[in-house]
């Protein structure tokens, strides 16, 4: 069996409430300076921006310690994203929380 791409099935995570439980929060509109506060430390969630859209990576497995291959949360990572993950559809799996202004 060729199982090298095996993955655990998607499960309902404790921090991901069911749709009927989710509170609708208005989308954020942040400047780059404001985004920098969302660095994933000391109670702040970990947000990143790609092409003007802000995503929540606080619970993303590949973002342990709010960092990912030398990149830190709280920044516009459009350039690194395009360099490493263009065409991989990763952004579609991330939670959108707002936009850069």
């Amino acid at each position: 069996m060729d199982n090298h791409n095996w993955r655990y099935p998607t499960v309902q995570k404790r921090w991901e409430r069911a749709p009927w439980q989710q509170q609708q929060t208005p989308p954020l509109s942040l400047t780059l300076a404001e985004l920098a506060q969302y660095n994933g430390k000391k109670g702040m969630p970990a947000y990143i921006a790609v092409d003007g859209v802000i995503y929540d990576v606080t619970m993303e497995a590949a973002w342990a310690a709010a960092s990912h291959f030398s990149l830190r949360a709280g920044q516009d990572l459009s350039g690194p994203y395009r360099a490493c993950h263009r065409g991989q559809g990763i952004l579609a799996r991330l939670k959108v929380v707002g936009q850069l202004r």
Partner: protein
Amino acid sequence: MTTLTQAKPNLLWLELTGCSGNIISLLDGAHPGFIDLVTSLVNFRYNNSLSAGESSDAMDQLLATLGTDFILIVEGAVATKANGRYTVIGSVQGKPLTALEALRLLGAQARHIVAVGSCATHGGMSAAAPNPSGCISVQQAVGRPVIQLPGCPCHPDWILGTLTALLEHGSLELDERHRPRLFYGNLIHDRCPRRSFFDQGIFARRLGESTCLFKLGCRGPVTRTDCPTRQWNQYVNWPVEDNTPCIGCAQFGFPDQMEPFISYDIT
């Protein structure tokens, strides 16, 4: 252990710019072990740490292998600054033989080249910023495909298993980064015995806690090895089950891109 069906090739093991941790790790191999390697699998001709010969005798032994059928294992990165003079592995006729020269000389003739350990596969610790000796990977230095066995150190089974597969079958299945799928096919995160804690959002806040180490900076989700199932020290233990996060030692980019290794202030 059954002797392989094909004639035994020579094996050369070069130690370049590194800590010799991989040859020490190899000695911890069990099934097969180091004794199996030297008695049944190959004619082990040269290694800096293990060879009985010294000085020019050792160099003669190394260079006498040129022109024969041999497999080249390399640990350590390749220092390039000052024409490679940061790493000299011996002297030939009174002239220093740099690691860079030795690798290019032997690498051009080897049946297979196997880069063992993170320094050899991508520079690793030796190439960490600010990389004072200009270290590069083995593949960059030889300019031909190299089988990549990252890890700091490399597990003895990954070395001996790769070698055995090459000797018995002539090749083994590699991924797009030239790692054997047999050992590097799955993410640590996908086989982690603490995965259920991650899925339930139950995280350790200090070292020593027995839940998911994600918030402390565990790199298991981006690192491909079979550590959770194979384990280390002759199949006894591995970092996460000893309550310390994976630091991604077998991921390309280690160590610089795997930092911070530990964090205590993550949300």
